[in-house]
């Protein structure tokens, strides 16, 4: 290339000078944009790190809880009801059940607190403390825990066995210093003697900080907050997720396939498409109101039931799945369709044998993201009565239940702030863990399916 090909030398030089002059500015602009991008990502990551850090710092201590390891004596003088009734020859099943039920009631009415009291005293024999103050050391569920040991094995009568009892919420607060240990007596929850006993039991090893498995195995509790767990909420969430998967995936995929592959393109399908997109943007609380009005008031389904929750969340997840499935159907190469049709496959065969399998990774990702979103949804569940205090593990989707995010909301509102602040964060950690797990499964399955396809 020579200078002669340019219009004129002078004009070329002027253009080049102009370009060179602006070059520095353009480079600077690019640098600025890059830095702005890096900064905004750093800020976002920083906020996430602060959030996770705070939740982890608050919640992790809650997973280790003060637990008493003592010897309990099943005193025949204290335990009433006598030996467990044997089934008499000729007695009917109903009579036997009644005898068992009467026996259980009599056993329950025994003075289990006295047994707990004696058991704790074995760990600190010389410590003088009133029974009333001593019992504040352990959770009030301890007596039922020991009773249940006896129910499970009535041969324990008269025996001394090692038992573990949870420390009460207030003991845990004191030992962990959640309530400032230097605060004066009138601001402490426990009596002076109870606090001293707790310290002594920690010193002699009777109270240890064990991993709190009961967070995963127990249901929620108000009367014994230390033993409150997530099992009921977890089962409630599980039922709802199953209902969402079972209902939303087939309905969503079927609607998407019909709309994308079979439906005529006219004003009606346009209207439907617009409305599906609108539905995806409807705030979740509106679905809750709808659920309360239709499923509970009109259809008469039970309140607080995971079935209703699942149905409401299904409505919420459907648009996500329909939209994602349609876009992955659109992304399938037209050559695939043409090849299938060209080889004589029917429209139906083309769609179901060739096009749809290509979209599985997309559908799967959409499903898992939709389910993860539904798992964290709280607002609609509050409106269908799932925010109640429920101390049963739901046996089926019609039983009352809460859900994990609702449990977080309930614990956040508990009046024992000192204990439940940590417990709330622990529940958040569990929920976030589940979310991460679901997303990891989504990524794993997608890469696997994509490789096969």
């Amino acid at each position, binding site marked *: 290339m020579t200078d002669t090909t340019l219009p004129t030398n002078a004009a070329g030089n002027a253009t080049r000078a102009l370009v060179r002059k602006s070059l520095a500015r353009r480079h600077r602009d690019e640098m600025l944009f890059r830095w702005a991008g890096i900064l905004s990502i750093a800020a976002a990551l920083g906020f996430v790190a602060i959030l996770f850090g705070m939740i982890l710092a608050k919640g992790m201590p809650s997973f280790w809880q003060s637990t008493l390891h003592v010897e309990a004596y099943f005193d025949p003088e204290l335990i009433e009801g006598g030996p467990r009734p044997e089934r008499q020859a000729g007695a009917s099943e109903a009579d036997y059940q009644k005898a068992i039920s009467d026996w*259980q009631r009599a056993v329950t009415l025994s003075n289990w607190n006295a047994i707990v009291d004696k058991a704790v005293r074995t760990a600190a024999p010389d410590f003088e403390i009133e029974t009333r103050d001593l019992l504040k050391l352990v959770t009030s569920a301890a007596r039922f825990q020991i009773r249940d040991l006896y129910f499970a094995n009535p041969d324990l009568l008269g025996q001394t066995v090692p038992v573990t009892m949870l420390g009460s919420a207030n003991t845990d607060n004191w030992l962990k210093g959640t309530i400032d240990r230097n605060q004066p007596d009138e601001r402490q*929850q426990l009596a002076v003697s109870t606090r001293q006993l707790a310290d002594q039991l920690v010193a002699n090893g009777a109270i240890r900080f064990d991993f709190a498995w009961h967070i995963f195995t127990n249901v929620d509790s*108000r009367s014994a907050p230390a033993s409150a767990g997530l099992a009921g909420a977890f089962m409630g969430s599980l039922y709802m997720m199953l209902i969402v998967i079972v*209902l939303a995936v*087939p309905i969503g995929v079927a609607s998407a396939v019909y709309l994308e592959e079979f439906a005529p393109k006219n004003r009606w399908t346009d209207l439907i498409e617009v409305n599906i997109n609108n539905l995806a943007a409807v705030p979740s609380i509106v679905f809750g109101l709808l659920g309360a009005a239709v499923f509970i008031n009109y259809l008469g*389904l039970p309140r607080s039931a995971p079935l209703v929750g699942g149905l409401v969340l299904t409505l919420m997840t459907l648009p996500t799945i329909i939209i994602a499935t349609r876009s992955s159907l659109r992304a399938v190469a037209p050559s695939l369709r043409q090849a299938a049709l060209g080889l004589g496959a029917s429209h139906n065969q083309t769609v179901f044998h060739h096009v749809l399998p290509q979209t599985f990774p997309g559908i799967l990702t959409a499903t898992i993201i939709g389910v993860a979103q539904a798992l964290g949804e709280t607002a609609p569940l509050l409106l269908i009565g799932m925010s109640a*205090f429920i101390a049963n593990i739901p046996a089926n989707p019609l039983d009352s239940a809460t859900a994990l995010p609702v449990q977080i909301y309930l614990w956040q*509102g508990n009046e024992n702030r000192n204990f439940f602040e940590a417990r709330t964060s622990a529940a958040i950690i569990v929920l976030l863990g589940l979310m991460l797990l679901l997303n990891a499964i989504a990524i794993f399955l997608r890469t696997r399916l994509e490789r096969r396809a």
Partner: protein
Amino acid sequence: MKTALYASAAVVALAAFGTTAAVAQSRDTIQIAGSSTVLPFSSIVAEEFGNAFPDYNVPNVAGGGSGGGKRQLCEGVGEATLDIGNSSSKMSASELENCHANGVTDVREVVFGYDGIVFATGIDQGDFALEPVHLYKAIAAQVPVDGEMVANPYTNWSEIDPSLPDQAIFVAIPGTNHGTREVFDIRVLEAGCEAAGLPEMEEDAMEAACLTPRQDVVVEIAGDYTETLARLQSNPEAIGVFGLSFYDQNRDTLKVATVSGVEPTLETIAEGEYPVSRPLQFYVKGAHIGVIPGLEDYVAFFLSEQMAGAGGTLEAAGLVPASSEFLAAQLEAFTSAVQYQP
């Protein structure tokens, strides 16, 4: 692919079948909702009830405020409706009328104890010795100055009364959905209003003048006490309104104010010395007795000495217990189906 389709179809059919089956199945768990003040007590009794009577399910207890509880109770009769509405205020005549209009004709009231309403600040704040008139002057939208009603001019507690701390006024009071608000209105604002000596005016105008809170430094909390506590944490100068049991469990962060010179404790409330207290009660739908298993046993268990009685489980949780004669009379009235009269 086909199998997957068939499987999904089968599952959808099953789910639809399950739905119809659900309608036919009868409910065997007691459903309770209402006042957030009563909620902890009600939940504790529910849980202990499940422990003591292994044949019954643990009742479900939801919040929603006293107003919500009474409204849901009065929605009608049937399994989809509430069995018990918790309330920290009495059911009004209009609420009962609403009940009757919806076919809920058998409504029984059970009073199980008392609760004090306390005023608390952050632990590092000044000592408050409050009188109802102080609170009225701090909260009302219009207050009398030299016999004229003017927009509330006070911004600092020491302007209202020199004995109060030099601290900016900021009060978090319960929203109108809470039963606590009603008691607060009657025992604090109306009492303070009377003591402040308002100029002569019509009855309706008087009520509005007494009970309308200002909007600048008074915030009405629709949520529960944790929300009020959060307000106090973000603004340590604020005064919050709490139930005695909530304050009791958070004594390490809250400092309580005396009202008319009396400090709120279980004793002063039980003896009626502390002025801002109210009975706690729940309303039972009589039509559900014998239909929902365990409803009668739950009420009897609630009123038993080991729960609501002096030295019982609920006292440890902050309830001001009623006398055992009173509890026995409540149970007697409940079992003999005495109807609630406002």
